[in-house]
């Protein structure tokens, strides 16, 4: 006799250790099968867009640090590019190279966090996470050399970066570039062949490319479905057009591909940093830009970068005063949630946390 079941709705979150922040999922189950998922968020909403309207263009940089707080450098970069477009500022060559070095190191750090927490969600408690954090720590130490801060860096400014890299940064970066490929191979060897990881991630949380495009998904999630779209290639900013790198893509769009794309992207980031170190010219790290300036009234600009989570864009409108009239943040984490129910419905309760973890969202950026 078949067992008759009745759907039940369960709230997962807002305080669940695996939800990567205060995030709630209203999930309807039939037995163990997921029937419907609805994301509920806003618990971390600080009104960054409103706050930006009351600060001058330079002060807003500190707000951008606190969006995606595991990838502050790319937030700074996106904002600075938008301001440069708005005010017609030309950043210096050295400044752009330093920005790209910082942003690519940040991408490695962010992907390490994503990979570590994916394993944490799979039940490999703490050890793999610490392996990932070990290398991330070295990146944060280099950020400390650059600007004195580890997480909320505020390193970049319209026109470049606020100070040149100190002398001891370069040897530290060289040793890091030497050590990191071996470390990534170690991580690859530990994880890629692991039966539990393969069993839990293969063909779980599958996303179709047409749904991903229709759902405005960007970043590693989009590329894992097989769409070769990377803003660094498609619409190069700063100095990415002078640098050779590949855009890794997946084939199935499942949890496994998302993990694999991130791993490959870390290798490509190392390649980019190596080329930047070889190419970086001498000169000022920042163009002469005053602390307070007034972009032309009525100017509008959309600046975007490929952040570790996807397309991060800032849409700025100026009214000729020292503060932006409107500062809209196109946050990849929030928009990637549009397809959350597509990747979860039809799978089991046990896959929910793993799949959610593999999307690598950051609540600071979702709620802003």
């Amino acid at each position, binding site marked *: 006799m078949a067992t008759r079941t009745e759907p039940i709705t369960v709230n997962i979150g807002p305080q669940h250790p695996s939800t990567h922040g205060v995030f709630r999922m209203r999930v309807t189950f039939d037995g163990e099968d997921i029937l419907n998922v609805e994301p509920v968020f*806003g618990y971390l909403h600080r009104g960054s867009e409103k706050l930006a309207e009351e600060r001058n263009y330079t002060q807003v940089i500190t707000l951008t640090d606190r969006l995606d707080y595991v990838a502050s450098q790319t937030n700074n970069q996106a904002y600075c590019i938008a301001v440069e477009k708005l005010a017609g500022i030309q950043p210096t060559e050295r400044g752009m190279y330093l920005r790209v070095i910082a942003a690519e190191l940040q991408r490695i750090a962010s992907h390490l966090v994503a990979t570590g927490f994916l394993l944490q969600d799979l039940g490999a408690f703490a050890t793999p996470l610490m392996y990932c954090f070990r290398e991330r720590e070295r990146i944060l130490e280099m950020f400390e050399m650059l600007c004195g801060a580890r997480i909320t860096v505020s390193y970049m400014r319209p026109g470049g970066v606020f100070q040149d890299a100190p002398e001891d940064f370069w040897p530290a970066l060289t040793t890091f570039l030497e050590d990191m490929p071996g470390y990534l191979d170690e991580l690859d060897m530990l994880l890629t062949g692991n039966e539990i990881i393969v069993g839990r991630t293969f063909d779980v949380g599958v996303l179709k490319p047409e749904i991903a495009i229709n759902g*405005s998904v960007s970043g590693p999630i989009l590329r894992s479905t097989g769409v070769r779209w990377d803003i660094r290639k*498609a*619409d190069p900013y700063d100095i990415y057009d002078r640098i050779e790198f590949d855009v890794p893509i997946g084939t199935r769009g499942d949890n496994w591909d998302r993990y694999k794309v991130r791993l490959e992207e870390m290798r490509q980031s190392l390649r980019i940093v190596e080329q930047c170190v070889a190419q970086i010219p001498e000169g000022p790290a920042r163009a002469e830009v005053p602390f307070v300036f007034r972009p032309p009234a009525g100017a509008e600009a959309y600046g975007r970068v490929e952040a570790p989570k996807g397309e991060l864009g800032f*849409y700025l409108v100026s009214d000729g005063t020292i503060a932006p009239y409107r500062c*809209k943040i196109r946050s990849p984490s929030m*928009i990637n949630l549009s397809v959350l129910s597509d990747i979860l419905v039809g799978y089991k309760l046990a896959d929910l946390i793993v799949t959610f973890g593999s999307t690598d969202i950051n609540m600071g950026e979702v709620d*802003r």
Partner: protein
Amino acid sequence: MTAWLDGVELARGIEEAVPGSVESSNATAVWVRPERLHDVAARLKQAEAWDFEYLNAITAVDYVEYFEVIYHLTSMRINQACIIKVKCWGRDEPSLPSVVDLWQGADLQEREIYDLMGVVFTGHPSLRRLLLWEGYIGHPLRRDYLEEPLPYSWPHGG
């Protein structure tokens, strides 16, 4: 390099595809009449020469007399992008047709704009507040949002 389409040329194309839909245009953007927005969006998505299958972002700007809602569209195949703008008049209940049926990615963004700016998207399947809680009074991203503290509006606490 992504080619950002020239607004004037794009406006000519849109006017041809959907007559009477373009309000004005400049070098970067096309202003579309609100009532024809959905038709224009559908054509932009489906026409072979445009193929804007990817919606980057929806932004709303409050210019006090009107709201301007801005759509950034991208075609990944041709690597081109365009900016469509809509002026939305009125402060009590400004409304626009929803484009969720064309781009699923518009769902959360339209809810966010409704939440923070108070622009109503007609045809949206579930237009509720996104970041703030149900029962919150006002739309904080509007330029005339109250500056003095609001009456406490959390429904179950306090």
